[in-house]
């Protein structure tokens, strides 16, 4: 049983591509056969985040137009032999591909892969429609900021209208220190507003910047975000993984909890 997952957000710059790279790599670490498709035609960047930019020969538009077969365009990952990337075209635009063509391609790939993961472009135009056309489920990436949450809400509405069966939320770049000060929306605040299922929380982590600099997804590493991505991947496969505590509770906090909540 293969699953087609679109990773989307509405707003740009919230971490869709980084999330795609890490979830794809994380699923491959769990022994799954995975293909990542960059559907952002004209603004290709999943290849650089994966560190595979020097290996591109053909791209998504070449496959759709029949210039090559899907297998010729897919690039094998450096570390995981069951992880592939189908890169986007850099010199074309969104109208080069239609939703019907995307759906056909994705359905064809179901035969060979457990997970087909689509990195969706920002916005709600043609590129978004292409990316969601063949998707069974969606992971919405948002940050705890008003603009990102507003766009996420709009995207959720559009996905529901398109009858995407399952929609889960990833809250990205949360900063516990700011939440504690009352200067950042908490996980509960975001869930209260968006009212959809939470599949994971990724803390703000400098290690992410380092990992994208190097083109090496950090899922599975000992960093907080590396662990958060592992948990998300396990939840994607259907495993019941409890939400990670983002911060170790100090002695004083434990004492306070004991007094105020009785445990």
């Amino acid at each position: 049983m293969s699953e087609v997952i679109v990773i989307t957000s509405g707003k740009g710059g919230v971490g869709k591509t980084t999330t795609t790279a890490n979830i794809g790599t994380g699923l491959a670490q769990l022994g799954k056969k995975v293909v990542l498709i960059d559907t952002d035609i004209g603004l290709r960047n999943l290849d650089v985040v994966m560190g595979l930019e020097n290996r591109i020969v053909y791209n998504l538009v070449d496959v759709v137009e029949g210039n090559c077969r899907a297998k010729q365009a897919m690039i094998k990952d450096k570390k995981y032999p069951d992880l592939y990337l189908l890169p986007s075209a850099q010199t074309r635009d969104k109208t080069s591909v239609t939703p019907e063509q995307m759906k056909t391609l994705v359905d064809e790939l179901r035969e060979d892969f457990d997970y087909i993961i689509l990195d969706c472009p920002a916005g709600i135009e043609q590129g978004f429609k292409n990316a969601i056309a063949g998707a069974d489920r969606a992971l919405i990436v948002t940050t705890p900021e008003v603009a990102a949450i507003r766009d996420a809400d709009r995207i959720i509405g559009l996905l529901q209208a398109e009858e995407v069966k399952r929609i889960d939320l990833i809250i990205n770049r949360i900063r516990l220190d700011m939440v504690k000060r009352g200067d950042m929306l908490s996980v509960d605040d975001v869930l209260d507003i968006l009212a959809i299922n939470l599949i994971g929380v990724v803390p703000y982590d400098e290690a992410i910047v380092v990992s994208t600099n190097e083109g090496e997804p950090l899922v599975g590493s000992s960093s907080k975000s590396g662990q958060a991505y592992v948990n998300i991947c396990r939840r994607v496969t259907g495993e019941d993984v409890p939400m990670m505590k983002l911060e170790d509770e100090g002695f004083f906090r434990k004492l306070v909890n004991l007094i105020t909540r009785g445990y």
Partner: protein
Amino acid sequence: MGFFDVFFKKKNSSNTAKERLKFVLVSDRANCSPETMEMIKNDIIEVISKYMEIDVAGLDIQITQTESEGGNGIVPAIYANIPIKELKAGR
């Protein structure tokens, strides 16, 4: 509310963000733009003005959320506050 919250409860920027988001999402979800609201407002003024003189400057109309009477939870509702200046004579 916890014991310590009594002391630390204050208006902070995340509360402001949450309130602003709740408002903006109600009108987003109802697919009701400010232009549409303006048209609704003008139509209401036109209809009510047939029967009574209203204070157009004091008129306030907005989309808000309210508890459904039918038990459907929170639903969007149009809230209109229309001050009447004078009931028209002869009615």
